[in-house]
């Protein structure tokens, strides 16, 4: 069944809206960085697309800017900072770790810690170290009930 599906798919050519830039990079590492950064930068005017996939004119300009900066030898951080300076934090899909976004990055850890704590509590109770303890009120009620039952017999 899967092979049949695969075969059918092999025959399909299907519509797409690809954006293909043919930059000549002076080294393969730059091309890799270009690909990665262009996927990390957001197109400022699109409905949630990165500049790699968007065919808006501004994305084209930003891709060219990215290419030039990479060829000029800027580091990833410098490039991102430069983009943020022009367009704001909005343009980064991977938020920087600062006072505002600390909560975002720490949230999973916090959730996990909280959850692990709750789970540990559940586990501890479930292990049942010895017989379940009764507080004094429950103890008194128990004794009253037992006494009542004894009287009935």
């Amino acid at each position, binding site marked *: 069944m*899967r*092979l049949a599906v*695969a*075969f059918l*798919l*092999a025959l*399909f*050519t*299907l*519509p*797409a*809206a*690809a*954006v*293909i*830039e*043919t*930059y000549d990079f002076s080294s393969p590492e730059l091309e890799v960085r270009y*690909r990665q950064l262009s*996927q*990390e930068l*957001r197109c400022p005017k*699109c*409905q*949630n*697309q*990165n500049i*790699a*996939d968007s065919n808006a004119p501004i994305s084209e300009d930003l891709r060219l800017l990215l290419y030039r900066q990479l060829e000029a030898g800027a580091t990833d951080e410098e490039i991102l900072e430069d983009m943020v300076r022009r367009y*704001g*934090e*909005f*343009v*980064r*899909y*991977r*938020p920087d770790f600062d006072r*505002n*976004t600390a909560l*975002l*990055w720490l*949230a*999973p850890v916090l*959730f*996990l810690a909280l*959850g*692990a704590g*709750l*789970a540990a509590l*559940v*586990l501890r*109770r*479930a*292990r*049942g170290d010895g017989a*379940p303890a009764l507080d004094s009120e429950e103890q008194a009620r128990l004794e009253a009930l037992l006494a009542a039952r004894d009287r009935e017999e």
Partner: protein
Amino acid sequence: MIPELGHFALILALCLAVTLAVVPLWGAWRRNLGAMALAPSLAVGVLVFCAIAFGCLATAFLQDDFSVRVVAANSNSLLPRVYKFSALWGNHEGSLLLWVTILAGWMAAVAAFSRQLPTVVLARVLAVMGIIAVGFLSFSLFTSNPFERLLPSTPADGNDLNPLLQDPGLIIHPPLLYMGYVGFSVAFAFAIAALLGGRLDAAWARWSRPWTNVAWAFLSAGIMLGSWWAYYELGWGGWWFWDPVENASFMPWLAGTALLHSLAVTEKRGLFKSWTVLLAIFAFSLSLLGTFLVRSGVLTSVHAFATDPARGLFILAFLAIVVGGSLGLYAMRAPTVTSRIRFAWLSRETLLLVNNLVFTVSTLTVLFGTLFPLVMDAFELGKYSVGPPYFNAVFVPLMALVMPVMGIGPLSRWKQDSAARWKRELLLPGLAAVACGLLLPLFGEGYNLWVALAVTLAAWLALGLARDLSNRVRAAPSLGRGLRRLPASYWGMQLAHLGFAACVIGAVAVSQYSIEHDLKMAPGDSETLAGYRFTFTELARVEGPNYLADEARFAVSRDGRPVARLAAQKRRYLASGSVMTEAAIDAGLFRDLYVAMGEPVGTSGAWAIRLHYKPMVRWLWLGALLMAIGGLTTVADRRYRRHRAAERAPAGEEAARGAPA
């Protein structure tokens, strides 16, 4: 005439839904058997009228009735028939009608397949689903009427369906997705019914499980189709973007996974009752939240429907009532008495507790990441974007955390197990898994540590399952007999877990090993990628039914032997003048080869060409498909058929009989 009929049918459906929401619930409160007994018929009635409305709208689309506003906005006389039909749900109003019709379908299914439920329970369950139906039917009728007419100024022809949607993907993806989303309303309804009745027990869990599993299976399939469709349709070779609308479907899936495992514990051991109920409410609330996010314009997304704050307010109010009401009910009626049931640190209960923990944390993480830009904006702290780099960074470790547990889970024993036993059973699979992790990545493009880790974990899962299977079959007189003795729910679990392992391998392999190259190519040029030689053989002009295309034909070979012939196209559609790229994909079980055309470069017949090598990408979707099949398989289990002939048991007896071990 037909749109008016549809409109009327929808109104009738609303009336019946209101009756369903009120009367059986009152009957359950007052123990009025007659009122309660109305529930199944009312549910079927809602389905009938929703189906009529749906049929009327479909007819309007198929007959090119452009006096109906949604038809004029989304269809065209030249559109192929099948897309005219599926254009029905390619817009806000129509998809809402689909939503409510599917809900009605689930209601009728619950009414039909629940002979063994006590009348009180069935009445409450259907009534709760009725309340949800009232909400959506009102939303449709009062703010998003699909039957709105453009008379007297009927346009001569429609605007046409977005070309990106003129694709088989549109035909199956939304219906499957909605089957999943909406299906969680059943588990939700059971949970609310249990809270209302004050009876939260193993029987409730047993009733809920098949419905939850089926909904989960559909949602898995729906998400998988969405991912696959994006891959071949959009041309960037990606398969998941953590877009808010994608997350809106993924969060119920994550919560649903936690739910279906938690239900197992509640059914088998009567434990985690409060948590399971909360998860049932949580999963469906996420479905409703998803509906809100997609249609209110609160978050930016490529997938969002045309937005309208007034509609958003309506959904939010509905959300507040349903979720707020159910959480309030939970707070007041959920059991507070700590369970006296014991289990040891090393036991299946613990492992499932860890599973619950990880999947709940994953859900919350995705939720927080999705809503973070909104939070920052609301507090005027600036405009932020949270995208794939963040989500991948936090989500992957969480899944890595749960996989070791998944390997032990199927083997583990309830209540009390021992480390010695685990070591005895799993030492060999463990070593084999590490071996796989060390050796298998060598077949890929260079050794990659992430892939090694993923392979180790996935192999650990698979081998653990194999070990458990062999244990269960060992005692039987023959292999065939042994396999046949295994219940369907066990097979479902095996398939689903295997599917998960396949998904993980696919996702990690394609992320780490895929190779992409954009370059200028002219006919005659060749480029080698991952050992495959792509030769641009010729550029041709092709005339399609409604487009003109430049076609770039490629011959792909490996080690001199021909592998595939691919023809990518750059189409100009005659009607709209829009230009679209058609990627050519050579699909394989272990790799995809992908060619797409960009723009012509210069005047010498050269084009910008994208070449992709995507290893193991199909495993992603095949894995998801396996999970869906697994989920559906569990429902075939004999225990769900046992009570078909039996009388409807009175409310107390089921619980008194206790749950099967």
